[in-house]
């Protein structure tokens, strides 16, 4: 088990730093995880994306299709990468406490 520590935050993560216990996610955890993605400050646009992902995950149990994410947040892929440099799956989903998708993806 790998543990990620940041300030008072202490969470179990996988080798790439994705949360292993997504139910323990909260906004402070998101801020801590964002530092591993080179995002020092979460702006309202960051939060819009993170909350969209979080709510989708709570409803559907997985990450959304990227095309759907873009359509429903109104952010194009370029904007998503500008917010989270490692992209929607590796960056934004990590900060929102989602698991890493596996398989033919």
């Amino acid at each position, binding site marked *: 088990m790998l543990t990620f520590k940041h300030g008072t935050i202490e969470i179990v993560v996988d080798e790439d730093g994705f949360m292993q216990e997504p139910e323990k996610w909260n906004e402070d955890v998101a801020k801590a995880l964002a530092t591993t993605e080179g995002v020092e400050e979460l702006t309202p646009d960051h939060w819009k994306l993170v909350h969209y992902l979080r709510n989708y995950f709570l409803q559907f149990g*997985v990450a959304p299709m*990227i095309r759907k994410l873009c359509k429903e947040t109104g952010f194009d892929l370029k904007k998503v990468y500008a917010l989270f440099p490692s992209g929607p799956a590796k960056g934004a989903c990590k900060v929102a406490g989602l698991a890493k998708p596996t*398989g033919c993806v």
Partner: protein
Amino acid sequence: MTEKTQQELVQIDYAPPARDWMDPRIDFVARRGSWSYPGAAKNLRYLGFPNPRDWSPEDADWKLPPNWQQIIHDGLAERLGKYRSLKVFLDTCVRCGACADKCHFFLGSGDPKNMPVLRAELLRSVYRKDFTTAGRILGSIAGARELTPEVLKEWFYYFFQCTECRRCSVFCPYGIDTAEITMIARELLNLVGLNINWVIEPVANCDRTGNHLGIQPHTFKDNVDFLVDELADVTGVRVEPSINRKGAELLFVVPSADYFADPGIYTFMGYLLLFHYLGLDYTLSAYASEGGNFGLFTSHDTIKRLNYKIYHEARRLKVKWLLGGECGHMWRVMHQYMDTMNGPADFLEAPVSPVTGTRFEHAASTKMVHICEFTADLIRNGKLKLDKTRNDHRRVTFHDSCNPARAMGILEEPRIVLNAACNHVFEMPENTIREQTFCCGGGAGLGNDENLEMRLRGGLPRANAVRWVHEKHGVNLMACICAIDRATLTALVEYWVPEVGISGVHELLGNALVMPGEKPRTTDLRGLPLAGMEGVADV
């Protein structure tokens, strides 16, 4: 991992190292980027697989069961009894070396243990020691090795550095199927809890929800509904797929990435358009929601366990036959294992195309037809109205996916579809296509990011051929019929040939298909402007 530049990656040293090949030691820290993370304990526990624990290949102690040597020995003995092919493959190799330079991982890495002959020898040497008289008596002189912890670690490294693509087998004068040797080696490794998470997590998800991604029924429906909306935006036609509908004529099974990931979703949209055009009486299933089967990369028992749902769901839904989508390794399972593992499916009927009346004789036993066979038959019978100019913004080449090409012989059908749908189709060199096709470098569960350096190395021969066809013919899109390909080739060309994109075959068919009642098309299924429509399209 420090990322290597292209110039660093192409400096491949083919001179064999001075070290004896029997020396198994591997520095896993130095070789980061060429191995995959181990299977997570939670997934092994979920599946009831042996030895769930936290470990890393970089640890000195891999936390094996105390009697691990006995477990491997007994496991090999059992398999030698069960699979005659294994014994034949282990006994007949004369080490002629015809396979040596046919493996994409050897070509891209220069590591001699990626020569298929030597990779197999890693297992064969232990077989000699434990199961042949010469090996027992003469030891290393007869090419025999003791199974030490270092040898086991070497197995883990190299048998998860084979994509089971079977290109080497095409060139073997004895027809030795090295993929089967890798499959058995991985089975043995699994017995002591050595596996990789990129395989084991999809297996666990598949066992739980029916698909690799862990998509539940309500999510499945939501994804399909979204793609239906997208299609309506592009074409003005609202298609009406059904899910879990009893009494449909056929059940259509796809790889889950087709209703989740770019660019597979556009292929899925192509399927839906085609079926709507034909008025096909079909259903999707939220349970048989994965054609792929990572059991193939785990063990025979796991293949059977994950494949069971296909016939089970066909029986429950009372369909007559099965149609399958553009997935690669799925077809090795459907074509070569499903019937004997989970059949006979005598409650189904031999597949007959309801549109052309063609009887798919070759599928009379499995009852499952490949979508490219189905569509090629429609085209041959003149049943589709296609406007090729709607793919004129694309100059297309075709990557034969390993399993459909070499395990099933699907060589002509996708080309029939592509040539009917596109004006500009160009082939890569002949020693890189059809049965000689080069692997994407990320099949058999190796398509993860931590293994990226090895993927880019293994994919280099394919990328090199793509570079050639791009420079010679201006190709800007490579079509393929495999979901792993669509994921891994995307990363591969982004690195080696960024001018070229990746698509499925039925995406291009969907672009060209002239739907009754459609609105004038300005974009393709991705929303990109068609040729001549660059200023018009609402992108």
